[in-house]
């Protein structure tokens, strides 16, 4: 840590981990919400599509998914050339990591949101229906706000796992914290133990911040006289 090269690597690694986590968090939650809404659709093909998606991404290891997205699908993505010589794919390894990890965590989020949605009483939905709400309005204004309160604890769990799973982006050379740390201890064997310790500390802090903010959110959503 005392050398500027090492410090730079660690800082850029932390920044990349934060970026990865942030985009994956947002995207996976969006996938979860959209997927859970689609699961309640009347269109059968849409429902089976979501079901297939969940089965595929839940039943395979995230690391295999990463490799598959980057190496297999990466083959078919169009390329561009900034200077006439280089051929760069339009989706970088960071891009693939974000896509793949978001789909992975998203599959779990769909199920988490589904559990929350199913916990909303049918009679409450009927009340909305008989007041003339459309299916989307019922979801947006009644079901979702109630479901999110039910599923926050398990969503919390999954998002924590997601932050930790970003380390697997190492496998496709995304320069996140673990990748940078490994390059440090490969070059400077004496730095191995302190760097490992640092990696632990950084993840504890990162996840700690996430947990704190989720808990605060949970508290703010609490309704007087409901579910306590």
């Amino acid at each position: 840590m005392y050398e500027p090269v090492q410090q730079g690597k660690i800082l850029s690694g932390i920044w990349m981990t934060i970026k990865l986590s942030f985009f994956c968090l947002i995207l996976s939650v969006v996938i979860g919400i959209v997927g859970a809404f689609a699961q309640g659709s009347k269109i059968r093909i849409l429902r089976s599509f979501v079901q297939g998606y969940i089965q595929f991404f839940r039943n395979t290891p995230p690391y295999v998914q990463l490799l598959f997205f980057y190496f297999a699908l990466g083959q078919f993505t169009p390329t561009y050339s900034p200077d006439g010589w280089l051929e760069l794919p339009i989706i970088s390894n960071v891009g693939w990591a974000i896509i793949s990890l978001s789909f992975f965590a998203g599959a779990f989020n769909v199920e988490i949101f589904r559990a929350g949605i199913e916990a909303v009483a049918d009679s409450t939905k009927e009340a909305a229906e008989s007041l003339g709400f459309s299916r989307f309005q019922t979801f947006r204004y009644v079901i979702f706000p109630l479901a999110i309160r039910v599923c926050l604890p398990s969503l919390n769990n999954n998002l924590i796992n997601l932050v930790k799973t970003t380390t697997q982006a190492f496998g496709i050379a995304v320069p996140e914290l673990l990748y940078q740390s490994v390059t440090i201890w490969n070059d400077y064997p004496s730095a191995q133990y302190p760097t490992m310790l640092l990696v632990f500390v950084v993840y504890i802090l990162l996840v700690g911040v996430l947990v704190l903010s989720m808990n605060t959110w949970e508290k703010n959503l609490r309704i007087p006289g409901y579910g306590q």
Partner: protein
Amino acid sequence: MLKKNAETIVSIKDVHKSFGQLEVLKGVSLDVKKGEVICVIGPSGSGKSTLIRCINGLNDIQGGQINVCGIDLTDPKLDKLELRKRVGMVFQQYNLFPHKTALENIIMAPTLVLKQDKAASEKRAFELMQKVRLEGKEHAYPGELSGGQQQRVAIARSLAMNPDVMLFDEVTAALDPETVKEVLVTIKDLAQEGMTCILVTHEMGFAREVADHIYFTDNGVIVEHGSPKTFFNKAKDPRTKEFLSQIL
């Protein structure tokens, strides 16, 4: 109080409804005129709740015809939104939106469904809260209100849509005897203002006092009907007599 020559607002003809193998309604017919108060009574499982749920399209029917305010419910191109604007429904379990205050519960449908101006909806909501005698509770959440208070908010919420017909599905069944009265008073006020009401109820005293017409259902059919006077004093059908002897 019977309104003669008034137009028929709800017309039900030979309605059949089944859940799977179980036939719940076996040919039910009844007409409701504008401004009338109808009470449907009968033992549990006789199909009375199903009947009023069919009137606002929460349950679809397998046979017969239902016409509400000129809207044919068996029409495959039925505009359910139009139907729901005309028909208000209050449930046994109040079914308020627990994450919204009483006032928000009332203004949600007018602003979202009718696209009314928020300030106007709020003004009307305050009036409705006064009407159901809950002024001062506008900003309370359902969880902070008693059952009777929640039910009155639910009535105000339905009224905010300016319906032509109000359906009450055993609205006092989940309440304790003391709070039953406050809800019944609210419904009575409505009836006296000329609101068309269809109630499924076990409150015989209330039915006798407020209803223009009473229908007794058993086993998916209407066994007997008539004015409260004839119904309670001169019931002809043995099944009705038995039911009345048990509860009166």
